[in-house]
């Protein structure tokens, strides 16, 4: 009787071991197929949010200028950095001068043709920031020459 029990116990143990072994083989095969189908999972990959990378809005402000972007420090700076520097450089903003109407028209053009998203309730802040800090200056029909670096020209 006791030897029969012992035998049954051994069979059960063996049976359990076999199940564990089969499960491990199953997992290994499954894992192997997954790796074969997704060879890149061990490759280093940028964080998924690089797709729409959120630019660094922190950073030094020096003489009223956000050093990393060159933007004027004012209300709306963060929203402008976050929404306007994903596709193009901040330089495309800072070299332009437009009225409120002009900035809105530019935003609409980018939304219609350049895949810019809906700015939602941030649009007003952004437009105010741009039209305040990057407003047109009157230039007349021809400007005076400025920033001339004088030097002696020998004969």
């Amino acid at each position: 009787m006791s030897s029969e029990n012992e035998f049954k116990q051994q069979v059960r143990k063996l049976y359990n071991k076999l199940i564990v072994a089969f499960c491990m083989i199953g997992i290994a095969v499954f894992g192997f197929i997954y790796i074969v189908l997704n060879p890149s999972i061990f490759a280093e990959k940028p964080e998924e949010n690089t797709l729409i990378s959120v630019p660094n809005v922190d950073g030094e402000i020096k003489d009223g200028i956000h050093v990393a972007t060159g933007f004027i420090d004012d209300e709306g700076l963060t929203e402008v950095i976050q929404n306007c520097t994903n596709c193009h450089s901040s330089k495309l903003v800072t070299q332009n001068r437009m009225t409120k109407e002009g900035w809105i028209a530019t935003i609409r053009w980018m939304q219609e043709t350049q895949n810019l998203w809906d700015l939602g309730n941030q649009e007003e802040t952004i437009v105010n920031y741009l039209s305040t800090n990057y407003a047109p200056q009157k230039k007349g029909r021809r400007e005076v020459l400025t920033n001339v670096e004088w030097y002696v020209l020998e004969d």
Partner: protein
Amino acid sequence: MKRRNFITKGTLGAFSALLGTEIVFGQTIPLGYRPLALQDPDPFKLFQKGSDMTVLNNKPWNIEAKAHLLDDKITPNKFMFIRNNGLIPENVDVNNWSLIIDGESVQKSKTYTLAELKSKFRQYTYQLTLECGGNGRSEFNPPAKGNQWTIGAVSCASWTGIRLKDVLEDVGIKEDAVYIGYHAADVHLSRNPEKETISRGVPIPKALQDETLLAFQMNGKDIPLAHGYPLRLIAGGWPASASGKWVNRLSIRNKVHDGAKMMGTSYRVPCEPVAPGEKVADEDMCIIESMPVKSLITYPKSGAMIKQGQSLTIRGHAWAGELEVSKMEYSIDFGATWTSCTIKKPTNRLAWQHFTTKISNFPKKGYYEVWARATDSVGTSQPMLLPGWNPKGYLNNACHRIAIKVV
């Protein structure tokens, strides 16, 4: 996130779904985008540009020269402006580069490898003036949107390639052909692969000119990547955006090409003149063709101080789009009087022309400006003031001037 997907779906069907997302992911993520070279933060090293060049924009790259940097008769790469609408193509595979000719008005669509183009057709070399349509935009009032070019978005390099007309003849184009439109390998700023960055072109008569090239070389070497390697359409004398870089397809159209940046305010100006700041409807805008007459004083650099009695040598270049420059003048009294100087004939049609002269009549000590004015072969001169305002600030061909002090 991926592992969770994997566990929850857990079937072989989910693999393909995962694989599907992988592909899309791979296209949009700038994973393959960052070849080491293009990450170089120093554009001067990256593009081998002179350190005095001005970077207007680093995404996309837009870089211009200054007048005194353009003193060479043939513009070297280091002083050639870069104008990009999108991102420079990555991983250009020159061995597998081909050019497809298609469109409504092609007899039969045809594909040439780069090697075929180089071996099958005779090659020509021309010096060709390329000026950005928006060169001088920064001066317009009210200001015009875009990169604020001053005077340095112009060049005249020596381009080597095959005549587009020879290729078109080999392919065969139908009689109803109106326009050719290029397609290229650059990447849209939004990284949307469905979007073309820029796809412009020229009418058939311009395409058939001897000087309109499919170029492989600039100044005797492979075209630098930023300027269109390995194949660039060159249509000298027209806005440089007509000279498509990284070209891999040309469409022979039976209508005016309607690719990206052919419509709206892009490279178009009001058909009839408008008051500064006026709104212009799309249908009242016309495509810019030949660029207007213009000139630059490339020596000396503005700001020269000379002694009284010392004479001043000036030199520079003048160009006139499709036309030739027939007269060159300068003024040291803000246009009250003009003095003519010799202008050389162009090396070939559409090359810029050179002038040089000696000024020795500064009447007394003081501040002067030397103004230069070119006149084209039909008698049209450069204006001293800004020419007609237009929404995107194109075609500013106002006279160039430099500041001089006699001490």
